[in-house]
C-alpha cells in the first residue's frame, strides 16, 4: 500500500471509529445515558464493584456505566482537578475523611432525594454517618449516600491463639477481649523457634500506625479535634493511647522492632505475627491465602471504654448534571446500596442496617465480627485538612514507637503543626474551616 493508500485507510478508519463511538441519537432509537463512575477500589474489592456495575448495566439498558478504578494515592488529585474543571465523573466514591475537603472545592452535589420520599432510607444508617454527609445549615442537605463502614478491628491467627491457650469450650480460638488478655495472648505467642536468642514469632505487629493509634484513641476517651474544630492531639486520652501502642514494642517487647520486615501485615500473612489491628477491607488480601487460620474480632478493650476507628465510602454525584444523567446516577447509587450485600463479600460492612441484619451477612465471620463495633466507632473528624492532620499523626506515632520522642512530646509537636495549618487555612478562607 502506498502513502496515499495508507492515508486514505487511516482517514476511513478514523471516520468509522468516530461514527461508531459518537453519541448520536437516531430518531426512533432509545436514548442511552452513558455515565462515568470513579473509585479507588484497585484491589480484589474492585472486581466485586465491577461485577455490581456490570449487573446494573445488564438490568438497566437505558443507563450504561463505565467504571474507572484509580489507586487511592492519586485518586484525590485526579478527581479534584477533573471536578474543578467540570470534567469529573458523574458518580464517584469519596471516603468520609476526605469529604469535607472535596465538598469545599464545590463540585459535589446534594443528593437528598436518593434517600426516598421523606428521607425514609435515612433510618437505615447510623445517625453519625448521616451527620457526616449533611452539609445543610437550616435544613438537611445530604451530599452522599454511605455505602459501607470500614471499621478497624483485630485479625488473629487462630492456630497461634489456640497454642497460646485461648480456646473456647467448643475448641474454637478465643480472641482476647481486654488489655490483660491481649497482653497475655501476645506474650504467649512470642517465641524463639530456632534458638538464636531472638523471637521469630510475635504476638503483635504494627499495622498502619496512624490507624492503629486512632483506633485506640476513643478507648481512652481521647479525641483528635474538639467541638470547635481545634486540634487536641495532646489530650490525655490520646497520649495514653500512644503510650500503650509504643509500649508494645518499647516496654513489653511484644512487637518486632519498627524496622523489621516481619512487622505488621506482612508478618501476619506469613503467620509470624499472631495479632494485628487493621481494617475490615484487608480481608480480601487474606482470602487469597490458602490455609491461613485467620479470624476477625472486635478490637480488644485496652482502655476504659470500647472504641475503634471507622471510615465510610460515600457515593457522590457531580454538580451540574443534566436531568437524565442525574437520574441515571441516582439509579446507580440506589442499586449499589440495595445490593450492598454483594459489596460486603469483598470485605466490607454494609452501611445499611437492613443489609447487616440479613442471614447472609451474619455468616460472614470477619465482617460480622467487625460490625459488632458499630455502636461505638469513631469516624474521622470533619475537617477540610484531614490529609494534613493525618500526616502529623503518622509522624507523631512513628517517632513515639521508635522511641525518638515521648508520646506527649510527639503529640504536642503534631498539635502545633496542625494548628498552624488550620490557622493559615482559616485566615485564607476568612471563615471557619468547618464545613458546616
Amino acid at each position, binding site marked *: 500500500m502506498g502513502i496515499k493508500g495508507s492515508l486514505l485507510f487511516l482517514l476511513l478508519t478514523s471516520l468509522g471509529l468516530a461514527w461508531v463511538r459518537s453519541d448520536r441519537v437516531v430518531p426512533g432509537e432509545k436514548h442511552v445515558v452513558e455515565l462515568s463512575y470513579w473509585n479507588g477500589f484497585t484491589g480484589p474489592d474492585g472486581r466485586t464493584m465491577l461485577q455490581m456495575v456490570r449487573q446494573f448495566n445488564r438490568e438497566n439498558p437505558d443507563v450504561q456505566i463505565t467504571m474507572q478504578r484509580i489507586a487511592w494515592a492519586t485518586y484525590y488529585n485526579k478527581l479534584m482537578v477533573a471536578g*474543578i474543571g467540570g470534567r469529573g465523573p458523574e458518580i464517584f466514591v469519596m471516603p468520609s475523611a476526605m469529604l469535607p475537603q472535596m465538598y469545599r472545592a464545590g463540585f459535589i452535589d446534594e443528593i437528598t432525594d436518593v434517600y426516598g420520599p421523606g428521607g425514609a432510607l435515612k433510618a437505615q444508617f447510623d445517625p453519625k454517618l448521616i451527620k457526616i454527609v449533611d452539609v445543610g445549615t437550616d435544613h438537611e442537605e445530604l451530599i452522599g449516600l454511605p455505602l459501607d463502614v470500614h471499621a478497624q478491628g483485630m485479625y488473629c491467627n487462630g492456630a497461634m491463639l489456640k497454642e497460646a491457650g485461648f480456646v473456647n469450650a467448643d475448641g474454637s480460638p478465643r480472641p482476647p477481649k481486654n488489655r490483660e488478655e491481649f497482653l497475655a495472648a501476645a506474650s504467649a505467642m512470642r517465641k524463639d523457634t530456632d534458638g538464636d536468642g531472638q523471637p521469630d514469632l510475635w504476638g503483635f505487629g504494627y499495622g498502619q500506625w496512624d490507624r492503629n493509634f486512632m483506633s485506640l484513641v476513643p478507648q481512652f476517651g481521647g479525641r483528635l479535634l474538639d467541638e470547635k474544630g481545634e486540634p487536641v492531639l495532646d489530650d490525655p486520652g490520646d497520649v495514653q493511647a500512644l503510650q500503650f501502642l509504643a509500649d508494645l514494642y518499647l516496654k513489653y517487647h511484644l512487637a518486632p522492632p519498627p524496622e523489621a520486615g516481619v512487622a505488621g501485615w506482612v508478618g501476619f500473612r506469613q503467620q509470624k505475627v499472631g495479632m494485628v489491628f487493621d481494617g475490615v477491607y484487608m480481608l480480601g488480601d487474606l482470602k487469597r491465602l490458602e490455609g491461613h487460620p485467620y479470624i476477625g474480632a472486635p478490637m480488644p478493650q485496652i482502655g476504659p471504654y470500647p472504641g475503634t476507628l471507622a471510615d465510610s465510602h460515600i457515593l457522590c454525584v457531580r454538580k451540574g448534571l443534566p436531568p437524565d444523567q442525574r437520574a441515571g446516577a441516582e439509579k446507580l447509587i440506589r442499586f449499589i446500596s440495595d445490593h450492598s450485600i454483594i459489596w460486603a463479600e469483598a470485605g466490607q460492612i454494609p452501611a445499611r442496617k437492613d443489609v447487616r441484619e440479613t442471614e447472609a451477612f451474619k455468616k460472614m465471620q470477619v465482617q460480622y465480627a467487625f460490625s459488632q463495633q458499630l455502636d461505638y466507632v469513631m469516624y474521622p473528624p470533619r475537617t477540610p485538612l484531614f490529609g494534613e492532620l493525618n500526616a502529623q499523626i503518622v509522624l507523631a506515632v512513628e517517632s513515639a514507637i521508635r522511641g525518638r520522642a515521648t508520646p506527649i512530646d510527639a503529640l504536642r509537636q503534631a498539635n502545633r503543626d496542625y494548628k498552624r495549618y488550620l490557622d493559615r487555612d482559616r485566615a485564607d478562607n476568612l471563615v471557619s474551616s468547618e464545613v458546616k
Partner: protein
Amino acid sequence: MTHRRSQNLVGYLFMLPYGAVFLTFIVLPFVVSLVLSFLEYDLTSRHPATFIGFRNFREALFEDRFFWKAVGATFQYVALMIPAQLVLAMLLALGMNAMTRGKQTVRALLFMPGLLSIAVTAILWQWFYNEEFGLFNHLLKLVHLPGVPWLSNLHVAMPSVVLMTLWWTVGGSAAVLLTGLQQIPAQITEAAALDGANGWRGFWMITLPMLKPVLLFMVVMNTIGGFQMFTQSLLLTTGGPEMATRGVVQLIYDTAFGDFRLGYGAAISWLLFIMIAGFSFLQFRIIRRFSE
C-alpha cells in the same frame, strides 16, 4: 523573496513545532508558577486566588519545619550521590579504557540498567531490599550476617535510595567518561609516560586535567538531577521513614497535589530553582578556577 530570506523562513518553520512545545510546556508554566508563588491559591478553597506577596516564601523559610527537613534530605542525597557516582563512574571508565578485549560488551552491560524506567527500577529494588524475602538480606543470611532494614531505618534509608540510583545511572556516567578518556590524544599520554608520568601521576597530571570539561558537565548535570530527586524515594520509601528521604520535589508534589496548595507549592519550586541555580553557578566558578 531572496534566497537568504526563504532559507531563514524554512529554518523558522523547522523550529516552529519545537518552539510551540517549548513555549507551551516550558516558558508558560515557568511564568505561571512565578505568578502562582505570590498567590494564596488553594484548589479546595471557595475563595478566588488572592495576592499575598512574599508570604508563601516566608512560610517556607521561617515557619515550615518540613521544608527544611526536605531540604536536609535533598542535600544528604546530593552529598552522597554526586561523589559516589563520580568516583565509581571514573573507576569503571578507567577500567574499560584499559581493556583490550570485551570493552563494548562491558559498556553495554553497564549501560543496561539505565534503559529501564525509574518506576521499573524502583519496583525491582523494592524486592531486592525487602527485609524478609529480599535478595540482599538473603545473601547476608548466607554468610551469617544479620539482615539490614534497608528502607525502614532512619540512617540506612537514604543510602539505600542512593545505592539504587547509582545502579541505575552509573553506566551512563561511565560511558560519558569513557568517551572523554578516548578523546585524550595518545601522543600526550605517551609523551608523559616517557617523562616518567605513569600510573597515579599520569592520571593526576594528564588524564584528570584533560577530563575537566567532561567532569564539569557531569558534576553540574548530576547536581541538578540530584536536587530533583523524586521518583526513587516516592516509590521506594514514599519519603519515609519519618520523612527522612522526602526531598524538596516530593514536598512540592505533596503540597500542590496532596494538600492542593498550588501557590505554596509554586513558591517552594522557586526556592528549589534558586538553590539549583546557586549551586550550579558555584560549581562553574570553582571548577573553572580549578581548571585554570
